[in-house]
């Protein structure tokens, strides 16, 4: 773990809502409302949250599939937010993305070979056909597929195999950073296990950094070294993954972890008690005033309705956005939680 590869500072992304013939704007979807995070080189950074929390928008904005409304993204020391589309070439070669559903992210009318050759041509990696075929063969081998798959079409492949092709396509340009947007949520668990093992192997082999976006907390626990929890466009808690799961301090994080269906007694023991009163995620068009979680939170008091809490570093590397975080710190201390023991203060 060394210097950050990617620094995202106060990223904001709003989408206009337009209606009618003249496309009059009637409102905004405030998908991302000021997200700051840094990803170190060789790190797997987890981003979790419910659907509608804005986690996918963060991922897509980071690889510049969307233009940010405001805020900066620094990649390898360069600010890429101000760059124009035509100057983004170097960045797009270095930062790739793997999407959720391999069925729709691969073109059904193109063979695997032609899909994988595309990035090689665009980024001028291999000009002649023989070189390209050789690289495609290597790529398929890298994702543990037989080179014979080259001439097949996506329809002939299973879901897991398609996702392997999508990973191979991302690797084709030799990137250092990949955004993985729910890469296994369309797959069965036994297939998911294989894809996750493959992603871990590739990460070690090529010293890759991942932004791992997922709604599956158990999976994020397995793969990520640090994890951020998003809710209605903002990060509400960020810590090393182990610390986040053993000592969750935000009521929303606790609620999320408490809701995960688990299969063993050990897991049931580590699940915290939920701190919410039911309810659902609010609309990002009209987010609640103050802390966005207050309508569901069982710790909420008057200040939570009025003022958005800051994301504060309550312990080294552990950030929480909550007015009443001291309540949870105190109770964690009383239970003898190892992570919170070192914490001094109120």
């Amino acid at each position, binding site marked *: 773990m060394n210097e950050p590869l990617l620094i995202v500072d106060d990223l904001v992304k709003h989408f206009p809502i337009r209606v009618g013939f003249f496309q009059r704007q009637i409102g905004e979807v405030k998908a991302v409302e000021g997200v700051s995070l840094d990803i170190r080189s060789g790190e797997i950074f987890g981003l979790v949250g419910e659907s509608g929390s804005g986690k996918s928008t963060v991922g897509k904005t980071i690889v510049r599939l969307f233009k940010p409304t405001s805020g900066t993204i620094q990649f390898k020391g360069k600010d890429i937010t101000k760059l124009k589309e035509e100057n983004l070439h170097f960045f797009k070669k270095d930062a790739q993305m793997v999407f959720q559903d391999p069925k729709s992210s691969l073109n059904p009318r193109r063979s695997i070979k032609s899909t994988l050759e595309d990035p090689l041509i665009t980024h001028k990696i291999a000009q002649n056909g023989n070189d390209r075929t050789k690289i495609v063969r290597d790529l398929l081998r890298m994702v543990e597929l037989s080179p014979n798959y080259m001439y097949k079409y996506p329809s002939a492949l299973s879901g897991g195999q398609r996702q392997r092709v999508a990973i191979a396509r991302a690797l084709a340009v030799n990137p250092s950073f990949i955004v993985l947007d729910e890469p296994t949520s369309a797959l069965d668990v036994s297939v998911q296990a294989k894809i996750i093992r493959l992603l871990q192997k590739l990460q070690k082999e090529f010293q890759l950094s991942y932004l791992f976006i997922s709604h599956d907390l158990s999976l994020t626990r397995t793969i990520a070294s640090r994890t951020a929890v998003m809710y209605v466009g903002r990060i509400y808690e960020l810590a090393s993954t182990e610390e986040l*799961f053993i000592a969750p301090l935000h009521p929303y994080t606790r609620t999320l972890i408490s809701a995960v269906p688990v299969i063993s007694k050990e897991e049931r023991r580590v699940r915290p008690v939920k701190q919410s009163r039911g309810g659902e995620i609010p609309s990002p068009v009209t987010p609640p005033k103050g802390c966005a979680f207050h309508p569901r939170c069982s710790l909420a008091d008057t200040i939570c309705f009025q003022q958005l809490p800051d994301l504060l570093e309550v312990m080294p590397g552990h950030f929480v956005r909550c007015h009443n975080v001291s309540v949870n710190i105190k109770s964690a201390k009383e239970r003898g939680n190892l992570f919170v023991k070192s914490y001094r203060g109120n």
Partner: protein
Amino acid sequence: MDDQYMLEIRDLHVYFRVYEGVSRVLDGVYLYVAKGERVGFAGETGCGKTVTMKAVMGMLKIPPAIIPHGEIFLDGRDVLKMSQRELLQIKGTEISMIFQDPMNALNPVFTIGEQLCDVIRFARRYRSSGVNLSKKEVHDKAIAALGEVRLPDPKRIKNNYPLELSGGMRQRVLIAMALVNEPSFLIADEPGTALDVTIQAQILDLLSELVKNRRISVLLITHNLGVIQETTERVYIMYAGQVVETAPTAVLFNNPKHPYTQGLLASVPRLTGGQIAEGIPGTVPDYIDALSGCRFHPRCSHAMPVCSMKKPPFTMLKPDQYVACYLYTEKGG
């Protein structure tokens, strides 16, 4: 007939005639749901969970489907020998279903109230002891049903269209529809898996509470093993059209016996962290050149010559725990 069981499936085979030949999907499925019991039915995509469920509900199109062998008893009555009319009488009244995708299961052009009242009137029409309800009574019943699934302001929701509700609310409407005619058996196909974990947890809590209070038998079909652990008493694990193992839920998750179940459980990421297993080598077999014997044998690290020749019988390990694997039979082991 033994009347301790709500549902009995014995040696069910379902084949499909397709262009390439005959696709042998179900290969001798056994499944029992006792009265008042909540049973989980787990397996990966394409293992035949939905086909089994459709056979029970009489929803298979024959042809292309063929049922060469097997029996299905619902509360002691043979489903496969029922007429369409008899099936209609029990569907939606004695057994009902909750579907996976709450958006597709509701009709977007009718209000929640219209659809719910339809379900109530349907049951009145087909139930042998049909009592005609007045318009007002149907309306009241619908409002009460929406209230029972804890939808806020049922009077307003009744006039909403599905589009105006969130995913979690739609799923609640589906539960209300499934339970409004007081069925004694409920089949839930992946309830809540399209939803976020916090909403899913709310839905599962609600469902568990409602079925417990009414002593409804439940067959919960899902690929999410965590959901099964949280909500059921007994579980069946299916692989490629064969039931490989069944046991009380806690027993099975603590101590899986069948090599497939072991591989499956090792692949599940845990909340306590730690590396997940390599998965199971190989892929799910094709149903057209269906394998003989145990269909798991090409992927199994314990495979023996006998595994590819003859289908393993169920071996009883403990009372209530059965596994179909030669590792546990005296002859094979």
